[in-house]
């Protein structure tokens, strides 16, 4: 294992700078690890979304402008902390006395150590180098977004339109250390893995016991696509899952001050991977469905009341779409006709379901989720029902790109669908432990009635 210590520390500093930017955006001070994670991802998403307008405004100094923005946010946060250091101390959540929860968290700690051992030893796996770190190299060299790839490459031009959160983090690490280098960006992925687990724990803990939260965290920590080769090899699917975990946490938590990170985090979904836009649409639909079912009469009033949140999400969608148009990258992988898409639907569903029930890839996560979803839809709270139906619907939505692919269908689904499904595994794991809780409560009630 080779931990690049300076870059490891610089990544910590970068995370703190993103969190301070998040604090400014959310207009609230971080008081716990969960809030720090939320603020960091909100800051990252905003910074990644801002890279395109910064490119238009500052040209080749866009990356430097990002660094200045983060540096300023960091200094402001320090100044504010010095000014208000006698204010209320940070909240620390009550420590669990549940021994099983502690054992589970200790086991999660071991999995984190195993991931670290892999992450800091393994070099890049295919897309980790050829897409994501490459985008970071090009961004670092140009100092801004460009519409060019390496000279002469045509097929790879499609990667230009891919979102920028992971390359931005890798490039900013390069700025901090005085130059981009492929071999020292791995601390970024360790940070995302910790964020993924913190988000999952926080999401479950918002509505369930510490034991349930530890269990959900354990399930997510062990998803092969999130802990092994692709995650440690520099792919962006695990960082995308980290944002999904944070979105789930923000959606399940009620904040008395009304300063939810949800809109910023939904916006951040669009900045990690292309399919993040699909995930953001699913998240918006879930919020709208919840508002509608919660209080139909006040749905429109509530929408108007949340206009600022809606504007944040809309701005992120708009920036993403404008960037895609600006890049004008060739779309040669997904260009099939509608009739061809309909004809291949049964095959796509069959192949995707085969991926989801593959024990080496998932254990029994998705069959377990299916059972939990049925339980939640039958007897869960409104929030739990919306969570279960959103995860289920998103699994189906993520099959849609394969209907239009120009690649050999079986090859592409075997290479991609599990990674796409892994992005929503945190939400599925939360739904699963909530479903187990509902089923157990129902069984206990029936015993009492007998």
């Amino acid at each position, binding site marked *: 294992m080779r931990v690049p210590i300076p870059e490891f520390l610089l990544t910590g500093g970068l995370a703190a700078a993103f969190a301070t930017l998040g604090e400014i955006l959310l207009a609230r001070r971080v008081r716990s690890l969960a809030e720090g994670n939320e603020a960091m991802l909100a800051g990252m998403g905003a910074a990644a979304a801002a890279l395109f307008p910064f490119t238009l405004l500052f040209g080749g100094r866009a990356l430097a402008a990002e660094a200045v923005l983060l540096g300023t946010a960091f200094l402001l946060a320090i100044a504010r902390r010095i000014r208000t250091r006698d204010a209320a101390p940070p909240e620390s959540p009550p420590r669990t006395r549940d021994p099983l929860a502690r054992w589970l968290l200790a086991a999660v700690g071991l999995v984190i150590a195993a991931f670290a051992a892999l992450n800091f030893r393994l070099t890049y796996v295919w897309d980790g180098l050829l897409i994501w770190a490459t985008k970071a*190299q090009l961004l670092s060299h140009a100092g801004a977004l460009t519409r060019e790839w390496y000279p002469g490459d045509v097929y790879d031009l499609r990667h230009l339109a891919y979102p920028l959160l992971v390359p931005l983090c890798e490039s900013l690490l390069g700025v901090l250390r005085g130059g981009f280098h492929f071999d020292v960006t791995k601390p970024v992925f360790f940070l995302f893995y910790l964020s993924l687990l913190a988000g999952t724990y926080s999401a479950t803990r918002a509505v369930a016991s510490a034991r349930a939260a530890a269990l959900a965290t354990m399930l997510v920590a062990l998803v092969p696509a999130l*802990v092994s080769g692709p995650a440690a090899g520099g792919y962006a699917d695990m960082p995308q899952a980290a944002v999904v975990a944070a979105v789930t946490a923000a959606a399940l938590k009620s904040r008395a001050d009304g300063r939810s990170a949800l809109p910023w985090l939904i916006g951040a979904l669009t900045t990690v991977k292309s399919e993040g836009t699909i995930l953001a649409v699913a998240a918006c639909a879930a919020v709208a469905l919840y508002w509608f079912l919660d209080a139909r009469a006040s749905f429109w009033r509530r929408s108007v009341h949340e206009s600022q949140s809606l504007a944040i999400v809309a701005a992120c969608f708009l920036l993403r779409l404008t960037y895609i148009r600006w890049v004008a990258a060739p779309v040669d992988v997904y260009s099939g006709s509608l009739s061809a898409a309909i004809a291949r639907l049964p095959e796509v569903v069959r192949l995707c379901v085969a991926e989801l029930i593959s024990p080496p890839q998932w254990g*029994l996560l998705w069959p377990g989720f299916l059972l939990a979803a049925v339980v939640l839809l039958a007897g869960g709270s409104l929030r739990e029902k919306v969570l279960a139906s959103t995860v289920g619907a998103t699994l189906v939505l993520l099959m849609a790109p394969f209907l239009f692919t120009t690649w050999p269908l079986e090859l592409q689904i075997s290479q991609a669908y599990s990674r796409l499904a892994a992005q929503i595994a945190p939400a599925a794991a939360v739904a699963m432990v909530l479903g187990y809780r509902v089923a157990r409560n129902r069984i206990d009630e029936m015993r009492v009635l007998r």
Partner: protein
Amino acid sequence: MVVVAASLAAGFAALRKDLRVAYLWAGPSIFSTVDQRQMASVRAALAKGEVVLLYAGRENVWHARLWQRGLYPRNPVVVQFDSDPPQRLREMRERYGIRRAVVIGPPPSAPRLRGERDLGARPGLPGSVAFGELPP
């Protein structure tokens, strides 16, 4: 319990497999010491900013792309695979003023280089890497 046990089995099996690969095969850098030595030789022979051609077979996609990233930004690399149309090679040479090439393999259709230097084999992989001047 069954779901947790299955997750443990799947997660640890995946970790074990990849840890084994990582600790048996992964070196300290994405560029092996041989890659670094070969790239340094080529870099030393090229002027700053000079575009170089890399010719390889499709079985060497990873290495071709690795070289492209390893030499960038000092020397942009145009990759030509043996399955690409020869016309493209002519176009690239004209557009970027390419005079010299790295050949990995070499594939049977590779251009014959003048003043060819054999940069040696790649550990564990068939074929070798050569560098030289393209014929006019």
